[in-house]
């Protein structure tokens, strides 16, 4: 492992202003990280995440990022470095994807247990075997029990903005948990789009410096990582749950404050698109939501009353917000790009559990529409929507 700290050259003040740039989704994330002023960035490349850390290295070279950059020998080491750095009370960043995320898995549990508010974008990619580089969210969804907050985004601008919001939420003293910002390979990670990079002054005003109550510091004489009793472990897990329960309201608040300052908001926990008088909501998360918007517009023109319910926060799973959002709606159809063999679509399963015990709960259809990154077009979404409206749902997620 090597750590590099470069002498900071004088920066052109124009670089600190708001900038409109043509950026790949991954590079948008890098610029978002830059504005958050992390002090330690531990990184290991993996397709399709690599452009994030490559651009961070470029920005460190030009002095636009002033952080200690650690190039690690594996993702496991990168996460270990993040945890220890975060425990010293500094803001920390890393990013990963797919196979690399799985090598990190052990330390993901440690990071949340150690209450280190690390922010880590995940570029969703299929898992081997067989080998592929396609968008599929099973990689980050398989980390849903690790104690990390999880956001799913639709495009590069939302990913950039959510990195900033994620630090604000994760570092809140009532939370102190790490967060993943997940976007999909290919359609987001490698898509060039016009992106607004906010000004440094605005981000500084929105996101205060990280200043935790506890930290590893030889002068403070605090430590972390002692062996505990069963009762202490029990209390620790319960406390993590209490912290998780604070997250939904803070997500809403962070998005409202973000919209006030930056003029862009995303609805916080979830977003409803053209849901007025809908007979059915299409429930989805991630990049597919963009295509579903177009499909909803197309179907509304044909007088088919359907809307999109976009889930943005997946951990903690926002049960209350979802129940409120779907109250009175006869049907939901989940279209998703992930698969848990023996269980089904993960959003489908979690959504059904969230509706348990709800009076007049909607019928829920689950379609495995985009598993493995297969193309899901506007016409395909209309076809699946009509299919759901015409049939009785089954318990299982359906290969369509």
């Amino acid at each position, binding site marked *: 492992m090597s750590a590099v700290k470069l002498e900071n050259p004088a920066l052109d003040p124009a670089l600190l202003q708001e900038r409109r740039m043509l950026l790949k989704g991954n590079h948008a994330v890098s610029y978002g990280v830059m504005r958050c002023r992390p002090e330690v960035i531990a990184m290991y490349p993996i397709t399709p995440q690599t452009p994030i850390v490559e651009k961070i290295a470029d920005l460190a070279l030009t002095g636009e990022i002033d952080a200690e950059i650690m190039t690690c020998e594996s993702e496991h080491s990168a996460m270990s470095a993040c945890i220890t750095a975060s425990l010293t009370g500094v803001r920390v960043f890393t990013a990963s994807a797919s196979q690399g995320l799985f090598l990190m898995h052990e330390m993901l549990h440690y990071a949340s247990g150690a209450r280190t508010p690390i922010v880590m974008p995940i570029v969703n990619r299929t898992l081997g075997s067989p080998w592929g580089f396609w968008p599929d969210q099973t990689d980050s969804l398989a980390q849903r029990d690790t104690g990390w907050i999880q956001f799913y985004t639709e495009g590069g601008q939302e990913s950039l903005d959510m990195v900033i919001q994620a630090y604000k939420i994760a570092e809140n003293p009532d939370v102190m948990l790490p967060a993943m910002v997940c976007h999909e390979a290919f359609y987001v990670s490698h898509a060039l*789009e016009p992106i607004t990079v906010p000004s440094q002054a605005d981000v500084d005003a929105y996101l205060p410096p990280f200043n935790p109550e506890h930290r590893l510091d030889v002068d403070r004489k605090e430590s972390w990582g002692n062996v505990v009793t069963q009762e202490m472990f029990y209390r620790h897990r319960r406390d993590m749950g209490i912290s998780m329960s604070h997250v939904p309201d803070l997500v809403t608040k962070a998005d409202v404050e973000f919209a006030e300052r930056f003029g862009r908001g995303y609805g916080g926990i979830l977003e409803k698109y053209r849901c007025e008088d809908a007979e059915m909501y299409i429930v989805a998360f991630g*990049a597919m939501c963009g295509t579903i918007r177009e499909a909803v517009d197309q179907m509304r023109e044909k007088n088919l009353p359907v809307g999109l319910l976009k889930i943005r926060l997946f951990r903690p799973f926002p049960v209350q917000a979802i129940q409120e959002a779907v109250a009175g709606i006869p049907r939901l159809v989940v279209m998703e790009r992930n698969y848990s063999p023996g269980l089904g679509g993960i959003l489908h399963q979690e959504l059904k559990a969230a509706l348990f015990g709800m009076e007049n709960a909607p019928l829920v259809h689950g379609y495995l529409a985009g598993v493995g990154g297969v193309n*899901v077009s506007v016409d395909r979404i209309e076809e699946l929507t009509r299919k759901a409206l015409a049939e009785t749902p089954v318990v299982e997620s359906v290969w369509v």
Partner: protein
Amino acid sequence: MAGDVLAEAFFQEGKYVQAFSSYGGAIRGTPVLTAIRVDDKPIRLRSNIDHPDAVVCFDSSLMGPALLEGSGPDTVVLLNSALEPEAFTEWGDLRVATIDGIAIAQKNGLGRIVNSAVLGAFARIMGAPSLDVLARVVYEVSPRKNEENAQCARDGYEMVKMMASTAVAE
């Protein structure tokens, strides 16, 4: 790379663009694909392009049904080839244009690097982006031989050959 340059030119003209390329599994020398959408409003689609307005083929030996999937009678097919457009009528009722990118590249000292010439030809047959903006972007983003690349774009714009059916938006 050519896709990124084209996207940048449209972006500098104030358009919304979305461009994504095949990656990762690509082996050096094997075919790669880039898709570009251009619009006056934000682009929300996150799916493949089913019905392209234009197909640009940098290696005419790849011409075939796979490349033409989703193309219709209005799709413009631009090929990097020394042949006349009429040489490709066997592939169907297509609006074909050709550009001899290698001849232009060699004339300007770029060997077999045809990107800039083909992009110039594209700008001509599609009527966008403007040649001025494209040539400037090509100049800015070229890692070296900047003026030679810009000149290739201008030459491509002038020397593209179109079938009579390939209407030109001037």
